C-alpha cells in the first residue's frame, strides 16, 4: 500500500473542516443522477455539486420534494424554499414507496454517530437503548434509505474509535452484510454504504458484502493515523491516494453563494 499525493500545493487555500468535507462530498456526486439529501453538511455538498461537477443532479427530499430548485439555502429537509419552484412535491407514499423503495434513488446521503466496518449505521443511541447515555435523533428516513438507495455516502464529523467502533451500540440502518445475516433471503437491493468521508480520509466499500477500506487520506494525514483512529483493524486499499483539496472556487461558492449566513459552515 502506497500513498500517492494528488493535490497541487498551489491549489491550497485555508479551509475549515466543514468546508473540506463538503467539497470532498460534492465531488462524490459527479455522474450521479438522483440524490436523497439530508440536512446540514449534505445541503452544502449537493448545492456545491450542482454548481460544479453535476449541474443536473436531481435533489430528492424525504419531505416529498423531487427536483428542488431552491432560491436560497435550505434550513431543513422540509424548508419552504425546497418547495417553491420544485419540479414536483409528491405524497409520502410516492416518495418513500415509489421513488425510494422502488429503487429510483441513486445516492442516499446520510450522517451517523457510528459506522461499523460493513457500513452499518447507528443514529439512535449511545449506550443502552432503554436508558441511553445519549439519545440521538433515531432513524428518520435512514433505515428506509439504506436498503433501497443504489448506494449511500456517509459523512462523519469525527474520526475516532467511538465514531468508527468495532461494535455499534445500536444498529439503526443495517448494511447488506447484516441484512443477509438476519435472513439469507433478505438481501436488500441497494449496495449499502459505498463511501465514508471523515475528517481524516475517505473509506470505500467496493464489495456489497465486503468491508470498508481506506482509499484516500486527506493532506497531512498518514495511513497509520487513520488506522489508529479506527475501532477495528481497518483494511487499506492497494493504492491510497491523497484527497484533492477543495479548489478556491469551491470555497468561494460555499462562503459567498451557498451558505452566506454561515448556518452550516464553521
Amino acid at each position, binding site marked *: 500500500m502506497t500513498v500517492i499525493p494528488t493535490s497541487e500545493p498551489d491549489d491550497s487555500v485555508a479551509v475549515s473542516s466543514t468546508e473540506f468535507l463538503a467539497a470532498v462530498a460534492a465531488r462524490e456526486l459527479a455522474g450521479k443522477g438522483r440524490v436523497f439529501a439530508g440536512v446540514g453538511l449534505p445541503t452544502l455538498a449537493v448545492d456545491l455539486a450542482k454548481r460544479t461537477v453535476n449541474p443536473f443532479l436531481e435533489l430528492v427530499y424525504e419531505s416529498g*420534494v*423531487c*427536483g428542488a430548485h431552491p*432560491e436560497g439555502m435550505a434550513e431543513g429537509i422540509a424548508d419552504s424554499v425546497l418547495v*417553491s419552484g420544485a*419540479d414536483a412535491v409528491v405524497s409520502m407514499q410516492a416518495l418513500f414507496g415509489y421513488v425510494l423503495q422502488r429503487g*429510483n434513488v441513486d445516492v442516499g446521503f446520510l450522517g451517523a454517530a457510528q459506522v461499523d466496518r460493513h457500513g452499518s449505521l447507528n443514529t439512535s443511541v449511545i449506550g443502552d437503548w432503554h436508558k441511553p447515555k445519549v439519545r440521538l435523533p433515531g432513524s428518520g428516513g435512514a433505515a428506509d434509505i439504506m436498503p433501497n438507495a443504489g448506494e449511500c455516502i456517509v459523512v462523519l464529523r469525527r474520526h475516532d474509535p467511538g465514531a468508527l467502533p468495532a461494535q455499534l451500540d445500536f444498529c439503526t440502518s443495517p448494511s447488506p452484510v447484516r441484512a443477509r445475516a438476519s435472513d439469507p433471503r433478505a438481501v436488500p437491493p441497494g449496495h449499502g454504504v459505498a463511501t465514508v468521508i471523515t475528517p481524516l480520509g475517505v473509506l470505500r466499500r467496493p464489495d456489497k458484502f465486503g468491508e470498508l477500506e481506506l482509499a484516500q487520506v486527506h493532506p497531512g494525514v498518514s495511513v497509520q493515523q487513520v488506522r489508529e483512529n479506527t475501532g477495528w483493524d481497518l483494511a487499506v486499499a492497494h493504492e491510497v491516494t491523497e484527497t484533492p483539496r477543495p479548489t478556491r472556487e469551491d470555497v468561494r461558492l460555499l462562503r459567498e453563494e451557498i451558505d452566506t449566513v454561515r448556518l452550516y459552515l464553521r
Partner: protein
Amino acid sequence: MVKPVKTRGLADAIAEYVEDGMTVALEGFGHLIPFAAGHEIIRQGRRDLTLCRMTPDLIADQMIAAGTVRKLVASFFASGSAGSLHEVRRRIERHDPEPLEVEEYSHYGMFCRYQAAASGLPFFPLRSYAGSDLPELNPQIRKVEDPYGGAPVHVVPALAPDVTVVHAQRADRYGNVQMWGIVGAQQEVVYAARRAIVTVEEIVDEEVVRSDPNRTVIPAHAVDAVVHCPGGAHPSYVQGCYDRDNAFYRDWTPISKEPARLHAWLAEWVYGVPDRAAYLAKLGDHWPAAVAVGERLSQPVDYGRRLA
C-alpha cells in the same frame, strides 16, 4: 452533461419501447385513455402482448381485434356506459377467432398490483376477496397470515409491466407530468413499469410546471419519453380540454358486434391514418366541436417565495 430532454415522436417511442410479447399497461380510468398510443401499437403490428387495463374500454376491443393481444389482465370487461365490448366477448365466449387468455381482479385488486410493483414490494394486502370465487380461479390472489392475530389477509402480487403509456394534460420537455381530474392508476403504473411513455395535450415551459409542484403527478425521473399528442385520448376525454365523445362510444356497439365492420373500422381509422393528427383531421367538423367544453378555472394558490 445536459439535462435530458425527453420529447419524442409517438411512433419513435412506441417503436423503441414496445416489443412483441411484452406486458404493456395502458391506464386511464375513464379519463385520459391513451387511444393514440394504442392505435400506434396496432399500426406497428405488435403481437402477443399481455395488455393490462383496469377498464379495458374500446381501446382493448380494438387492440384485441387487431391481433395485438394474447392476454388481458383487467377488472371490468365492459365499456363505461356503452355496454359490452363485443370483440372481448367473442374471444372469451366463443374463442372466435381464437381464445383470449384472461386474468381477472376487482378494481382495487388491480390497483394494488400496481401499487405493489410501484413500491418495490412482492405483494399488496386488501380486504376484498374472502368468500369470492375470484381467488379460486385466479391463483395469483393469495393470503398471508396476520402476525398481529387477526384473520388472514388476501394479497395480490406485484404487476410490473415492461412498458406503460399514459396520457395527461401537460408536461415539460423533461417529462414532469401534470394532470388533474380523475388521476386513476397513472402514478402507480408509471412507477410500476420498467419504461414509461407519456403522451400529453401540451408541452409547457418548465416554469408552468414549477409554478405548482403539487400538481406534478409523475416526476420526470419516472418518464422515458414524453410525446406531444393533442387529442390523444379521443374518444375518451381530457378534463378541461375536451369532453368524452359519447356519440362515438355509442356507435362502437354496432361496429364491434360485426367483425367485418370492426375490421373495416380499423382499416379506415387506424391503419388508414399515419398518426393522430391525421385521425383528428379525418374526424373533420366533429373534432373538436362535438366535444368542446367551457372554461372553469381553478383559483390560484400561493406557494410564496422567501424574501431576501
